[in-house]
């Protein structure tokens, strides 16, 4: 099991009121699988991914990464874990607009201390793998949304992570482009053995998954 959550809850406070985004979620993600969290908007999918991705801390409960309790990790250790073991693909791509596609992919490697020639070599290879070998020096504003998401996937793979967290990766894409991105993620899972954990509200997207969890109002169903 690469990731396990145990009785996870997350409560947000908005003034005097409380929003219970997650209510005791326990799940496990097997290494090398394509797992989907399916649920409507507001069901708590993103909150769950943020907790699993160590971007946020739960109100109660625990997240285990390869059996290790992440609540015991310092901020620095959580960052290091994110940098080296987890890749993120966001709905709105979140590429740095001032950097080219190549530089965006090189960035996580630079942060991890990979030497520049190696960064360049690996980034080019990754971009070629996602079909953007001819768009290396384009800035995000010069790329289509589908291309931007593929750059985001290449960036997520930069440091060879064992887990890719994709939060509504097809949310901004038309169905054809969305299908391409899903097949790309599925291919990574099958060919590279990378674990993919994806949140989506799209039932069709879930069909590619090895395992699907349904989330409604912060509670896992069934």
């Amino acid at each position, binding site marked *: 099991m690469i990731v396990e959550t145990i009785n996870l809850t997350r409560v947000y406070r908005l003034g005097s009121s409380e929003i219970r985004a997650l209510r005791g979620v326990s799940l496990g993600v097997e290494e090398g699988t394509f797992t989907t969290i399916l649920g409507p908007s507001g069901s708590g999918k*993103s909150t769950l991914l*943020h907790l699993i*991705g160590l*971007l*946020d801390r739960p109100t109660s409960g625990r997240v285990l990464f390869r059996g290790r309790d992440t609540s015991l990790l310092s*901020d*620095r250790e959580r*960052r*290091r*874990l*994110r*940098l*080296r073991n*987890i890749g*993120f693909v*966001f709905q*709105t791509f*979140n*590429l*740095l*607009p*001032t*950097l080219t596609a190549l*530089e965006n992919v*090189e*960035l*996580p490697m*630079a*942060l*991890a201390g990979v030497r520049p020639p190696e960064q360049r070599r690996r980034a080019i290879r990754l971009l070629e793998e996602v079909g953007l070998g001819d768009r290396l020096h384009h800035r995000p504003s010069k790329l289509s949304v589908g291309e931007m998401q593929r750059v985001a996937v290449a*960036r997520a793979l930069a440091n060879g992570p064992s887990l890719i967290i994709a939060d509504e990766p097809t949310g901004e894409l038309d169905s054809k482009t969305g299908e391409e991105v899903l097949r790309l993620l599925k291919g990574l899972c099958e060919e590279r053995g990378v674990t993919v954990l994806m949140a989506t509200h799209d039932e069709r997207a879930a069909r590619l998954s090895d395992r699907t969890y349904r989330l409604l109002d912060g509670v896992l169903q069934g």
Partner: protein
Amino acid sequence: MRLAILSLRGLTRRKVRTTLCLLGIALGVSVILGVGTATTRYTATLREMNTYFQGRVIVVSSRSIFIQALPIGGVLPGGIVAEIERVEGVGDAVPMLVLVRLPQVGEGGGLGLTQLVPMNITYGIAGGRWGVLVGSTPLRAGRWPDPGGEEVVIGRYLAERNNLTVGSEIRVEGHAFRVVGVLETSSPFLTRVIIMSLEMAQRTYGYPRLINMVVVKPEEGVSEEELADRIEAEIPGVSALTSEERGELTEGLFRDVELWNLGLRTILYLMSMVLVATVMTMNISERRKELATLDAIGAPRGFVLRMVSGEGALLGLLGGLLGLLLGSIASILLVSRYASVPIAMVFKSLLDVVPPKTALEILASTVAVSTIASAVPTLLAQRMNIVDALRAEP
């Protein structure tokens, strides 16, 4: 390297905002440099004038004041020198007639404004005692005047400004004089003097047998204070000023000038800080999602801090360099105006007007101020909630 690229591109994204910020910093730096170098040079000139006649007592009419090596107002009869020489403790007394010509409108820097440094100063010195004024300053060319001849020695600035060399004729108050020597000096004071015999100065300026100062050297073992007190006690109608008293006359002025300079510099640096902090806060607010993304992919906390500080430092560096360029031009104009020296001559001595050390200090201070100013937005960036920022609309 990547950090520098990120910082630079972060700034170039908002070109108008960045340009306006750079111009604001450059303006501040140019004023700091321009006013700073001009006032430094001005006070240095005046301080240098205070160093003349050190160790001597200056006797002037009690109706005149003595400031910056120049007696202003009031004359003394020439016979007073004999009275002074009779005072106990006087080693030597050299009478002088000093006349100052202030620049006219349109002279000097060519700005048509009143300059603060005299255009030229005539020293009529008795008995060929030139050394009392010039010390060991050598002549670039020529010789010293004959006491009875219509001859003058002039400072280098006057010679260069008026294309005069040894043998040239110079007109002083309508009288023709032969230039027999040129003083080799970089002193802003000596470079503009006209030195002639006392008799010639009295005749030229219409002050027969009159003088306006006597330079008195105390005998060995007699202090200036002691001698000045004796002279004032024994000779009515005169003021005897020691080196210390002469210095005190202008120290207050120097302190005020330096305080104003410091105050102006502080205000301008504070304004630059506010400007940089405002621009950087706006930049950070617009880039919350980007910074959150960096956080999400695992960028160390220090990376974002260095990136934002780097942008502040770059603003300071670029604005500072532009400011130094503008400030150097301003310095040349100001020094030219206040020292009555043509712009071309000031430009030749640019490194004296704007010493590289001063320029580097200002540049370093500007970079430091801008970097410190970016601390506010950096702290904002640090306190940002990563999840909220990721969820924000782009």
